[in-house]
């Protein structure tokens, strides 16, 4: 039976959400087949922002690809850089000096807090509450100023190099970070009272958008999505990289599997990130920030390896296949949002449209990360 005949019988109609739409964070199109207010089928159509970073990885040398990493997931750009740099270092056998590792952890965790603050504001805007966005951006400005003073960029960072970082942090940065942590800690009760305990917000997210742990496993969903379904999977604890083993921090996870659980995971993650940053600042060692004798044009040995980091959105993985030349033979970027988004079709069947949008918001999607 043709689609038209079927839709007349079922009285369904097709509604296009996007590609230009205020609620989809980037250029995303979702073909909704609706039965009144209920969604029968939601098919995401992606690729509007596809720039073929993986081909670019094959066409340029390893070092020249570094700026690309900042453009894949621009909100949490340092994680992408860390993943790529870590994969190349793993294959080349480069050891990163300790101070550089500490600096990487501090800047990455600051980036995680900034990313979660952006998500918080955008999620509330999706639900119709416009004011928290401005408060989140107020806090985020401080982080961006700190990171700008050390990396030179506010959003698309290209800070990590093979063997370390390119710029050292100074006392101003340390003092600024400490004062930022104190300020954000004092503002968390305000967010709690204004957003978390807001009855209308709670009605919008509690019990909405249930994703079971089994679905997460089948689709490869990681990050706050799987942690909101009761599974404490965090690459920093389960597959520790860099110097995360030296810090005390908890992995928040909640078993409700709804949008509220994912929201609470991210709020708790901000608190835990601040703990990590404090511990890192307290025990920051002196020393070099770059490994010695890293060749200018890197040629890796033949072989392949996989390296993954816990990005703000999930497990970001890089697979580098090298054939011994200056360029990578194949560079695969495993994007967390890609896997998180792929379960939207299955989970949104039968939901109401506002609830589906709350679910979409709770994934924390950055479309360029999906499209690469």
């Amino acid at each position, binding site marked *: 039976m043709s689609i038209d005949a079927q839709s007349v019988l079922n009285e369904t*109609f097709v*509604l296009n959400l996007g590609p230009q*739409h*205020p*609620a989809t964070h980037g250029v995303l199109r979702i073909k909704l087949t609706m039965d009144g*207010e209920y969604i029968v089928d939601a098919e995401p159509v992606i690729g509007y922002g596809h720039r073929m970073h993986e081909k670019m990885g094959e066409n340029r040398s390893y070092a020249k690809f570094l700026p690309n990493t900042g453009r894949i997931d621009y909100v949490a750009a340092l994680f992408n850089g860390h993943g790529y740099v870590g994969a190349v270092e793993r294959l080349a056998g480069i050891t990163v000096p300790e101070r550089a590792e500490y600096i990487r952890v501090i800047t990455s965790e600051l980036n995680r807090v900034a990313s979660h603050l952006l998500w918080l504001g955008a999620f*509330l*805007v*999706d*639900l*119709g*509450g*416009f*004011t928290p966005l*401005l*408060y989140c951006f*107020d806090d985020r400005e401080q982080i961006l100023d700190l990171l700008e003073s050390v990396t030179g960029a506010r959003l698309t960072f290209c800070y990590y190099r093979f063997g370390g970082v390119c710029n050292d942090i100074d006392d101003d940065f340390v003092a600024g970070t400490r004062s930022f942590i104190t300020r954000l800690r004092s503002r968390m009760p305000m967010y709690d009272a204004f957003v978390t305990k*807001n009855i*209308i*917000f709670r*009605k*919008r997210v509690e019990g909405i958008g249930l994703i079971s742990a089994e679905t997460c496993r089948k689709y490869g969903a990681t990050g706050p999505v799987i942690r909101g379904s009761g599974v404490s999977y965090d690459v920093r604890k389960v597959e520790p990289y860099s110097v995360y083993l030296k810090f005390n921090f908890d992995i928040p996870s909640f078993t409700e599997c709804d949008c509220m659980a994912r929201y609470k995971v991210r709020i708790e993650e901000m608190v835990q990130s601040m703990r990590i940053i404090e511990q890192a600042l307290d025990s920051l060692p002196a020393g070099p920030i770059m490994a010695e004798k890293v060749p200018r044009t890197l040629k890796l040995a033949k072989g392949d390896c996989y390296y993954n980091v816990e990005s703000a959105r999930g497990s970001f993985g890089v697979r580098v296949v090298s054939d011994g030349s200056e360029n990578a033979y194949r560079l695969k970027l495993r994007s967390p949002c890609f896997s998180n988004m792929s379960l939207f079709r299955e989970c949104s069947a039968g939901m*109401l*449209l*506002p*609830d589906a*949008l709350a679910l979409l918001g709770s994934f924390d999607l950055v479309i360029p990360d999906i499209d690469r």
Partner: protein
Amino acid sequence: MSSDMIMELVRLILYLVGFLAFALLNAAYLTLVERKVPSWFQLRPGPIEVGPWGLLQPVADGIKLLGKQILTPQGADLIMFKLAPVMVVVPGVLCLVTIPFSEMIVPRNFNLGLLMIFAFGAFGVFAILLGGWASNNKYSSIAAARVVAQNIAYEIPMLLVVISLVFVTRTFNLHTIVEQQMGGFWHWNVLNLKASIMMPIAFLIYFICMLAETNRAPFDMVEAESELVAGAFTEYSGMGFGLFFVAEYLNIMVGCCVGTILFLGGWDCPFGLLPGLHWFLIKMYVLCFAVIWVRWSFPRTQFYGLLNLSWKILIPFALVNLLLTAFMLKLFH
């Protein structure tokens, strides 16, 4: 024509020009207040470019909207499409005819003034429905359907609350209703606990219903920006779009005026001295500020949450209030 008739004619024309100017100026400057108030909440300057303190912003917005090309979508019902923005402004202006701003300033004092206001208020929904349907756009149709459901659901508790108030005032004449509340805030209907213990709650129910009737957040499903783009107004550009917003602010104004008259004593001073137009305007603008404050503090409810609130919470409370008022009136009179 006798001199009386000429005087009456002059008076009518003055009132016509006067309250049209008042209504439209208010609607225009409420758009500025709508942008300045949240800017205070959100720690940012708000409009400051055009005029000192942004005071010429509504003028700039008006000129911009007038200068835009009016696009009509293909397949739209042209007559209805162009009629809808005009129709939506009419009820707001009409309702102002019978509202007493002070003892002397009332264009036409009808004995059934309150009834007339609610009759015309219901008319505005019709215009939005027409606009949404005539746009030949799925988003607009969904939004128009939501508007009707929402307005019907919230019309009922509002009318129940007003009816229970009419039991107390025994008249539909707005001028008389205010006169009964003169002499200080303890005479105001909101604190008239002799008539019904639930009077303050009745005022709250009226306020919530007013928010829903005027399609303001948290009940702005019509315009649910992040879901349906601009809801029923998606296909409107230029002044058509502008007129819908003028109508929204006019409705807010009318709702706040009626709320002031019914519950807050109209032009009465809280302590009984110097009553007059200024007190009416102060109270009305305080209510408008509350409306804007609520909009920027809460996210949007879901559609079924909105309807549940009305049918399962507000209507039972309003019915209880009605019964209580009738009971107490019978008991104490």
